[in-house]
Structure formats: structure tokens, C-alpha cells
């Protein structure tokens, strides 16, 4: 097979070789999670604007029924994962690092699993207009399931751009996570079918599937599913190194091309999609099913029976854990996502979302509390491992000093928050935390600046308008007075006086006109 001739792999700079800890759950087949007692669906499961609820408390819902509509171009539909009744729509805690609450729809399942009427399957997708297929993805509420949760219909809208390669991200480089591995072992054909549909949508000619070499079964399964008719699909095995699954890193590994700094893969004619996303695309197109469930890995030494579940979106994390035998006494932390980039949950009383690929119930050995940070000794370990070629120690220095201009000069926004730098730091500085802080501060001040700019402009407009009105009023008054005076003095016609008055009138008119024109301040900024 051509793929065995080892196509070139471009090694990216930095990265880490860390124990992958996948053995805990990799051999556990996907099992259907049992129906939870209630489902809590946040209106915002995705990047972009929250969806708008279409139901109200008390409404019955059917499985797959649209319950919240995308409110904007960058937004995503939300469907009822099962049939039942809406019991509440309110702000509640969700799985978010801030621990803040967000508006959610709560559904109480009736256990009947009655489906709503679904759109017809599109079996002849190869002859279907990409726009129509995209509309289907949009309807199905599909977002990037690798964790980025960006609406897929938006990401695949490549109108006016030339795309030659579709990258299917099967790297799954974070330790512990095995949901994509399992999906490939069990349903590689579905993933490849989704990939072909996506290729058609973006108009690419080839598909590169990038997968780390620590998943031999998944690789074999993919190759088997491809079975000869590899119509432009290549399986590319990459060495196991974190973060090979980073979009930019994977593209570089597979093609040797760097996605421009602060740019998109689209800028170099590529689109990247995760394997689970591809599978849900196939589901939406070939079966007309919306995205209402996903595969999630429940793992860590802090849970009794690690495994992979296909669970409904909105299932409480506590129920997922319970289905895996509950916590062990050693459990210490609960992490959503991988241990490198995921975030620690404050509580398990939150629902899983479309982007939840993994929950790790970690013991204190697995996810130790970091020792107190020491000063940066500028050892440069962080520089060696940064896949973005940044200078993490300098970024840290400036972020700490709140010198945000300098952080931007040091390319803060090219940081992918992979955490490699913090992992190797001998001083145990929570570097990524500082970068997030700096980014948040910069965004906040940018918003402030824009708001202030807005306010200033509004204020100036108002001032100018008031001035103009005042001038107009004065002019009117003067006219009236003049008219009156004229009447009274018309008998004693004084040409000299009339001339002066006329001149004054002209000046006043000119002045008024000038004030009127001076209104809009020069526009600046880009909003």
C-alpha cells in the first residue's frame, strides 16, 4: 500500500513526550450510556452567539426536535437529545472554567425515545450542492467535536477560497483521551464517509488523515475501511508527540506548510476537521440526524471502571461517572478535556456538552497540586518545547508586569495554550494561566477602547447636534426680530442701518452654517 511507503512527516519544533495513560480506557468498547434522569442543555455549547430557545417550560419535546435556534451566523442549533418535557429554562452552572452559570434548557426524559420528524437523508450527496449540505450541517447543530466547538457549517464555508486538502485530525495527542481512538476502531467507515462528504463540501481534492502511531488498532481499522478504493484519501501516521493534534502542528506534520501566524488553515488552502465531527457529519447527511450525542471518555485512577460512553448531550457528569462505577476514594480532581489543556471542574453537577470529549477523575498522583511557584530562572526550557516558537519566559515576564503591549510584541496571540512550557518549567510557574490572564485583559481593554470610542463619538455627535439646533433657533429668532423691526422701522427707512443689519445677518448665517458643518468628527478606528 502506498501509505506504507512512509510519506514524509515534518517534525514540528518543541512539544513533549509524555506518558499517554490511554491504556486505562482504550480497550473499553463504546457503550451506550443509560438515559439520565434529566438533561441540561446550555444554549451556548459552541463558539459564537448563544442559541435562542424555541421552547418554554412545560413543552413536550421529541427526540431530535429543534429546541433552540442559531441566533447568528456564528451560532449553532440545539436539539432535544431525547423525548420528554421541558421543565425549566434558567441560568445554571455549566462546565466552564469560570464556574459561572449560563442559560440552560432542562429536559426531563419520558423514556420513550420518540423521534421527531427528521429531514430526509441525502444519499446522493456527491451530486448535491455544497451549500445545501452545509445547510444540513447547520441544521444538525454540528460543531467541532475535538473541543474547539466552532460551528462546522461556518468552518466549511469556503466560498471564494481555493481548498485543496482536507485534514482529518485523528491525532488525539492529549494523554488519557480515547474517544476518537474508539470511534475509529469501531466506526472507521463512518468517519471516512463523513470525511468524503466534507471534502465535497469544501471542494478539496485530497484527504489526509493524521493519526499518532500509538493507536495501531485505529490505524488498522482505518486502512481496512479504506480497503483499496482510497480515492484520494491518505492515512498518515505521525510520531506520538504532544501537541501533534494542534491544528497548526498537525498540518505542518502532514504537509510541511505553516499556517500563517494568526491566520487560518484556509489561508493555505486547507480545512481541518476532527474525526468525531466527520462522523456526525455523516450521521446528519446520510441519516438526517442532528447532533444529540457524542462519545466521551471517562477515565483516570479516580473512577472505578474507566470507559468510553456514547452519551446524550446534557447528561450530568455525575451520572456518567456513576455509570463507570463511581469514584474511587483516591479521587482528587475532575478534569474536562485532556490533562494538558482541559480545565478542572469545581463540581460534577454540571452537564456534558458537545465539546466534552473526556472527563478525567484524577488522583493526587495523576494531577498533583503544583508546588508553590518559584521565580523564573530564565533557563529557557520553555523555549525549547514551545511549538509556536514563542519565548514563554518573556511573555510571562511581561504578563506579570501587566505590560500587555510587550506581550503582544512577543506574539502572545500565537500561543495555543498547549501547556508544554508550564509542564517543563522547573520553577512550576503556571505560565498558561498568565497568558490567559493577559489575553483576557487585552480583550477587555480592547472592548473598553471600542466602547469609549463609541461613547466619545456619540457624545460629539450630540454636542454638534445641540449646537446646530441652538444656532438654528437663534437664527430663527433673529429673523423674527428683524421682520418685526423692519415692520416698525420701514417708515423711517434708514439705509445705513439696513445695510449693517444685512451684513450682520450674513455673518450670522455663515456662522450657523459653519457650526452645522463642523458636526461629525473625523472617523477613526474600524468599527
Amino acid at each position: 500500500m502506498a501509505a506504507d511507503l512512509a510519506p514524509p512527516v515534518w517534525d514540528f519544533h518543541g512539544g513533549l513526550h509524555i506518558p499517554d495513560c490511554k491504556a486505562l480506557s482504550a480497550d473499553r468498547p463504546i457503550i451506550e450510556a443509560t438515559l439520565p434522569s434529566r438533561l441540561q442543555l446550555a444554549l451556548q455549547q459552541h463558539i459564537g452567539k448563544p442559541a435562542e430557545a424555541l421552547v418554554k417550560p412545560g413543552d413536550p419535546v421529541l427526540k431530535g426536535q429543534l429546541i433552540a435556534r442559531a441566533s447568528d451566523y456564528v451560532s449553532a442549533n440545539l436539539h432535544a437529545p431525547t423525548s420528554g418535557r421541558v421543565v425549566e429554562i434558567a441560568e445554571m452552572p455549566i462546565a466552564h472554567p469560570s464556574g459561572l452559570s449560563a442559560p440552560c434548557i432542562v429536559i426531563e426524559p419520558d423514556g420513550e425515545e420518540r423521534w421527531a420528524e427528521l429531514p430526509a437523508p441525502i444519499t446522493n450527496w456527491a451530486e448535491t450542492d455544497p451549500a445545501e449540505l452545509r445547510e444540513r450541517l447547520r441544521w444538525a447543530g454540528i460543531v467541532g467535536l475535538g473541543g474547539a466547538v466552532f460551528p462546522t457549517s461556518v468552518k466549511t464555508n469556503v466560498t471564494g477560497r481555493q481548498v485543496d486538502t482536507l485534514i482529518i485530525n485523528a491525532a488525539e495527542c492529549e494523554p488519557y483521551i480515547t474517544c476518537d481512538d474508539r470511534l475509529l476502531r469501531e466506526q472507521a467507515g463512518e468517519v471516512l464517509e463523513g470525511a468524503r462528504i466534507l471534502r465535497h463540501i469544501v471542494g478539496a481534492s485530497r484527504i489526509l488523515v493524521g493519526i499518532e502511531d500509538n493507536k495501531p488498532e485505529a490505524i488498522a481499522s482505518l486502512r481496512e475501511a479504506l480497503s483499496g478504493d482510497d480515492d484520494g484519501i491518505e492515512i498518515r501516521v505521525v510520531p506520538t508527540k504532544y501537541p501533534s493534534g494542534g491544528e497548526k502542528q498537525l498540518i505542518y506534520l502532514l504537509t510541511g506548510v505553516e499556517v500563517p501566524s494568526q491566520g487560518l488553515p484556509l489561508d493555505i488552502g486547507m480545512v481541518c476537521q476532527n474525526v468525531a465531527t466527520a462522523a456526525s457529519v455523516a450521521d446528519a447527511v446520510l441519516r438526517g440526524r442532528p447532533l444529540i450525542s457524542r462519545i466521551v471518555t471517562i477515565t483516570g485512577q479516580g473512577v472505578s471502571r474507566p470507559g468510553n460512553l456514547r452519551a446524550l448531550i446534557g447528561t450530568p457528569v455525575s451520572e456518567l461517572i456513576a455509570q463507570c462505577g463511581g469514584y474511587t476514594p483516591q479521587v482528587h480532581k475532575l478534569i474536562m478535556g485532556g490533562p494538558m489543556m482541559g480545565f478542572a471542574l469545581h463540581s460534577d453537577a454540571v452537564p456534558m456538552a458537545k465539546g466534552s470529549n473526556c472527563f478525567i477523575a484524577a488522583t493526587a498522583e495523576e494531577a498533583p497540586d503544583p508546588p508553590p511557584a518559584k521565580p523564573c530562572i530564565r533557563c529557557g526550557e520553555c523555549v525549547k518545547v514551545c511549538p509556536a516558537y514563542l519565548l514563554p519566559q518573556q511573555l510571562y515576564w511581561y504578563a506579570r508586569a501587566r505590560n500587555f503591549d510587550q506581550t503582544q510584541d512577543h506574539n502572545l496571540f500565537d500561543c495555543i495554550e498547549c501547556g508544554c512550557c508550564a509542564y517543563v518549567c522547573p520553577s512550576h510557574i503556571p505560565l498558561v494561566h498568565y497568558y490567559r490572564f493577559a489575553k483576557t485583559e487585552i480583550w477587555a481593554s480592547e472592548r473598553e477602547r471600542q466602547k469609549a470610542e463609541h461613547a466619545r463619538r456619540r457624545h460629539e455627535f450630540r454636542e454638534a447636534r445641540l449646537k446646530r439646533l441652538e444656532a438654528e433657533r437663534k437664527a430663527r429668532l433673529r429673523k423674527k426680530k428683524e421682520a418685526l423691526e423692519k415692520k416698525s422701522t420701514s417708515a423711517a427707512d434708514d439705509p445705513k442701518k439696513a445695510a449693517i443689519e444685512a451684513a450682520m445677518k450674513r455673518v450670522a448665517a455663515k456662522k450657523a452654517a459653519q457650526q452645522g458643518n463642523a458636526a461629525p468628527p473625523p472617523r477613526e478606528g474600524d468599527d
Partner: protein
Amino acid sequence: MEFPVASSPHLSGQNNVQRVMAQVMLALVPGIAALWWYFGWGVIVNLGLTSLTAVVCEWLVMRLRGRDPRPVITDLSGLLTAWLLAVALPPLLPWWQTVIGTAFAIIIAKQLFGGLGYNPFNPAMAGYALLLVSFPADMTRWLEPSVLGGHAVSLNEAWQAIFSGIPPHPQGWDAVTGATPLDHLRTELSRDHMISEIQRDPLWGNLGGKGWEWISSWYLLGGLFLLWRGVIGWRIPVSMLGSLLAVAGIFWLIDPEIHPSPVFHLFSGATLLGAFFIATDPVTASTTPRGQLIYGALIGVLVYVIRTWGGYPDAVAFSVLLMNMAAPTIDHYTQPRVFGAREDADGR
């Protein structure tokens, strides 16, 4: 159930500051042993003095700042400074000078700037420079290495000399002290002697001065250990030694009778100690990959310039301190090309 929250990543490597410092200290041991072998027990007494002073000073400063001194002392950075200073000092330096140098290094050069990580100058070299400027006579009074048939200084003699100023030899200081090879070369050259003549002196070994060349070799070994362990990067030592060899090589080729060979420069004075243990001090060095090449190369050039035309026989301390000042500027202009930045914007 509720859990503690923390910022990602939730894993961390095994590395820590203490370990880094301990490895550097370990790498220094062969060099220290060689010093002891050739110069006797004064070396060890000095080591004890600087170590004790460093710990006491750190404890004192931390106490005054109302902070817990333990984490600062146990990170070993202060002790490493003490060791680096100790190996640079003449073996029988009066004790109070040693104490002053160490105290200056720890209190002024390190802690006054905010402690580890914030000091712009290499503390050990700052302490050394202070002593050299303040007590030039004592600081250049080196013993003759024992291989030259000199007198091996016992622990008791070292103690007496350091604390009471009693010479370790009945015939006084002159019987035991000798010029370092760099010093010797300097004086002889100024007397218009040719290098081939100078090298006939029994002081000279194969690579540098007798004894000295071996001490340097053990530093080299320690340095290679640090490279192998990944504690230091290759850029600074390679660029520093490379540029020193290159500049020395050019002059040597022009006239080998008035310019000593590059190999002599390599194995004399503190060249190898400096290249692997001092210029590589991460806190005060340049931190960008390209910056480190420039930083190291300029130190190499400065070492040659100061040795050849400057007022001091050895130059590593001053060269490093000078380049410490330049490091932030070098860093500023040598940021790496960020992933995905256009090729023409900047080289990597």
C-alpha cells in the same frame, strides 16, 4: 461532589530549580577536586567559608524581608553562587575578603535586585570583580600548583593562613606563591620575551599551565555532563569558545611569537569554567536561541581583548558582567520567528 480547581496543564514534569542547581554543583565537583589536588586545603576552606556566608546572608535577607528563608536557601542557587565564587578565589585569600565577596554577591548582586531570577548580573562574578578591584594584590596571589614541586598546603596550614595570615611555609609567602600562567605570560611578554622562550619555563604544560590545564579539563568534563543532562544549552559555550578560538587563532597565525596559541587560551584562566558554568547562568544570560549565540560569541571576543590589551590578566568575570548588561538588548532584537510568520519577516 466538589473538587479543587487549578489552571491547566494539570500535569507537570519532574524538573525543579533545586535539581537544576544541584546538577550544576555536581558538575563542579571534579573541578573542585582538581583544585584541591593542586592547591591544597585552602580551596576547601574557601568553599566552606563562601557556603556558610551565602546561607547566612540569604537567611538574613529573607528574615529582614519578613519571608520564609527556607525555600530560598533550599533552592540551592545561593550555594551555587558560593561555590562558583570559591573556585575563582586564590586558595589562601584572607577570610574576611572571602566573606565580603560572598556577602556582596548574595546581598547586593542577588537579593537587592529581588533575588533569584531578577538579578541582572551574575552574582558570583560580581563578588569576584568587587574583590579583584578592591584587593588586587591578595586576589592575584595564587599558590604554585603542587606539581611544580611546590609545597602541598595542609588543612592546618590553610586554616592558619586564611584566618591568621600566617604563611604556610617557614620561608614566607614567596616560597609558596607563583604567578598564574596568564600572569606569567603577560609579564614576560611585556619584557619582550618571545613565546617560544617563555614556554621553556617549567610552569608550562602541554595545553596551558601545568596543573591549570588539568583543572580546566575537569571543568570541561563537568560542562559536558551538564550538556548531556540538558541542564545547559550548547549555544553559549560553543559560541563563546568558538569565538575565543577564532580570534586567538587569527592573531596566533599572524605571529605565534607574540600571541599565544588558541589552545593556551582555552585551557588557561577561567575560560572553560566560564564557558560552561558562568556564561551559561540562565538568569543573566541572553535567553533567545540566536541571542545566546551572539551573547556567547561576544564574551569570547571580550575575553581575548581584555586578556591581551586590558589591565587584568584574566577576563572572564569582566566579560561576562559586561555582556550581562547587553543581554536584555540582545534578547529584544533576537526574538525567534514565530510559527507561521512570513519567512521574509525574520530569520529563525
